[in-house]
């Protein structure tokens, strides 16, 4: 434990600082702070899920720039699945299933057939945009809502309980849970060790008797379900409608968050929150005015923040070495 604290002291220090600042802000500006934190998390939810898709993919050695497309397809399938069947459950299953299928598409093209990973991702995005724009029907409505969940005890905590554990949709809880589970799995299980080995140095994994291709196929495909959830959140929870291009570049933002989070699930969660908060600040500035700043300029705040953080992070963090490279055995 002491060694762990010593090793992660920078992260812990920054984390503690941010937490203290958040509480200070929370009590000092109690009129706007709770809603800003709420908005921040609301914005971050799909980003967390999507960033996890990226983390799992790249940790296994597959660059996934098709997250945007996966989300879009899932948002589409989920919304219209629910609308036509009249059942939210069917919609959710359709959305998650579509995410899986899209993940499988990426996995098979890049891992089994060794197609260029960037091109495969772009293809997925184009297909998704095409399909969802072409078959789009307006005027459909959802038969219900995704239930909100209160977590007993945890919801009593000021700030944290209010923001994360009270009156939040089930998908939000799943996002937190997923980040924790993926983190533990990646760094503390056999699956995680193998996945990281496959993403860093696949031939070492191969000679140690690990089936590189199969592990990559399974990981990339299963990660698709999280992209599915992220998409569902957008069309069935956050807005309860499907619009053309509803994902609005969040799949790509998620990749930036993945890098800012150094390919680690929990850091990605924190980074998504940071990004959400900047976004909330931008909206708040537009709302309250006060400053004599044109709204177009405040709207760029999140993107400027991303640029700054990425510029700082670049060179300090190092991604999985084999991400982006198909693994070819000696014999083939």
């Amino acid at each position: 434990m002491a060694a762990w604290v010593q090793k992660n002291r920078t992260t812990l220090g920054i984390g503690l600082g941010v937490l203290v600042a958040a509480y200070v802000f929370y009590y000092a500006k109690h009129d706007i702070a709770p809603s800003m934190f709420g908005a921040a998390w609301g914005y971050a939810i799909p980003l967390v899920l999507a960033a996890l898709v990226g983390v799992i993919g790249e940790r296994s050695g597959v660059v996934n720039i098709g997250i945007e497309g996966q989300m879009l397809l899932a948002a589409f399938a989920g919304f219209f699945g629910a609308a036509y069947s009249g059942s939210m459950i069917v919609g959710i299953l359709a959305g998650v299933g579509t995410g899986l299928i899209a993940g499988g598409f990426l996995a098979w093209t890049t891992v089994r057939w060794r197609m260029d990973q960037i091109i495969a991702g772009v293809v997925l995005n184009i297909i998704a945009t095409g399909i969802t724009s072409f078959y789009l029907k307006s005027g459909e409505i959802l038969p219900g809502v995704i239930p909100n969940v209160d977590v007993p005890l945890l919801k009593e905590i000021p700030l944290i309980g209010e923001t994360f554990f009270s009156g939040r949709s089930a998908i939000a809880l799943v996002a937190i849970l997923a980040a924790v589970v993926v983190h533990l799995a990646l760094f503390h299980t056999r699956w995680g060790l193998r996945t990281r080995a496959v993403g860093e140095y696949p031939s070492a994994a191969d000679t140690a008797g690990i089936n590189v291709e199969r592990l990559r196929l399974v990981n990339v495909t299963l990660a698709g379900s999280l992209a599915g959830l992220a998409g569902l959140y957008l069309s069935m929870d956050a807005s309860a409608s499907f619009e053309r291009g509803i994902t609005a570049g969040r799949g790509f933002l998620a990749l930036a968050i993945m890098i800012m989070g150094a390919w680690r699930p929990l850091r990605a969660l924190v980074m998504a929150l940071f990004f959400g908060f900047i976004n909330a600040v931008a909206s708040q500035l537009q709302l309250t005015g006060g400053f004599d700043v044109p709204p177009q300029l405040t709207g760029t705040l999140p993107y400027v923040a991303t640029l700054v953080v990425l510029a700082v992070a670049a060179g300090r963090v190092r991604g999985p070495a084999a991400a982006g490279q198909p693994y070819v055995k000696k014999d083939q």
Partner: protein
Amino acid sequence: MSERTPEPPDVHTDPQAAVDVHLDTSQEHLASVVTNEAILELPPEQSGFGEGVVGEVLLDIEGLSKSFGSVRANRDISLSVRRGEIVALLGENGAGKSTLVNQIFGLITPDTGTVAIKGDATPIKDPRDAIARGIGMVHQHFQLVPVMTVAENMVLGHETTRGGGVLDLAAARTMVRELSAKHGLAVDPDTEVEDLPVGTQQRVEILKALSRKVDLLILDEPTAVLTPQETDELLAVMKELANSGTSIVFITHKLREVLAVADRVYVLRQGAVVGEVATKDTDAKGLATMMVGREVVLSIDKSAASPGETVLEVQDLHVVDDRGLGAVNGFSLSVRAGEIVGVAGVEGNGQRELVEALAGMRKVVSGRMALGSLDLTRANPHQTHHAGVGHVPEDREKHGLVGTYSIADNLVLNEFDQAPYAKSGVRQFDAVRENAEKLREEFDIRSSGVMQTAGSLSGGNKQKVVVAREMAFKPKLLMAAQPTRGVDVGSIEFIHRRIVEARDEGAAVLLVSAELDEILSLSDRIAVVHGGAVVAEMDAKDADRTEIGRLMAGDH
């Protein structure tokens, strides 16, 4: 190395007897170092326990063939390995040795023929299958994940877990410590592999192989990256393992090592076994002749040097490495025309940075270097080349060749934009081809033609392309860094001869090599480096092997 082998035996002086000296063959000792407890159950005549005893047939290969396209990498190979035996596979680059062992380990599927392990001839499906059947392999390019710790690397593929899939790294660390104590190979389980020196990485590789139940250990060119001391340690470990009933198949170019540890040798040439011999019935010359198919001159015949005026003058040079740490610290040396100066030293003592600085590839922090009256301290590689410096780089794949270009283009890589290879900015392909044909002939580059890509050549022939290019323009200074690393005997002989010829034609030669043998046989003068500076300079004819070894180790 603990108390079992108090000091690394000196293989250099007496290859035949060397490593045997400190072996303990008592039952208790063998039982304590054994890699696979099942061996203990076997009677001695099967287990191969103890010196000179060989046991059951562990590996039996019959009529193995493998082709890649039109290249027949292995042709009808038959060989067998008994328990407790050390078998060397000897051959030139491209003779098919790696292909052969990769088939034993299940990385490559044979076209025809069978590989039987302990009498079981079921085809080996993949590495997992090979491991399960008691085969361990240490690859030429280490198969370790750089960003993971030693312990994590060791358990990869057979993880110790508790409660389902949860990793038990504490158990892994214990396992590493136990194994490392048992075999006398010291490693720290918590260091990340990328922070370890090459020699230690190899220890990890070997321990990784031993952490499974191993009957047969395959070592693919294990000594290529090791210093002489590390090599001796490794040879002692190999002997020890063989005595405890583990068979070893190892690939090497170095005859000395074969004679020092192997019981039997299979010599491969052009994918086929051309000879099988017990090491006690042969010598270096016999093995080299079998490898190349003709008599090989192992010692270089050279006349005494007749040095002229000073060509290269290096004064108090300081250069930093990639991490920004001082690698070359006050290096001073002068090389005269018509002499070969050998820079001897354990790798990582600034040799790489020195050569890169001299070639203009690395910035000089302070100090001065000059070629005749020309100051080269701030020169770039283009300028150094045109000043008359020929550079045979240490890493030929990265700095010596463009693998996807043809041999012809590689041969004019630093002069492609000048007459006669280009006129008014237009390349003259006839001249390029003519030059290539001439050099191919002269330097005996074995290829299907000069338009073949350089990347598809074997190691020795790649090196000949580099050497041909750097020598063809008659440089005033020839810098050769590890000129024969990973190169077969025939090509070594050839390259050595050419270096001596360059000297006789009046070039100053700076030879940097980790092979002490090479330094001793080629140099006229020897500079020993340690910590990035010259610690001793001597005439080659007064040089003493052990003395240089001591200086290299920093004892001065």
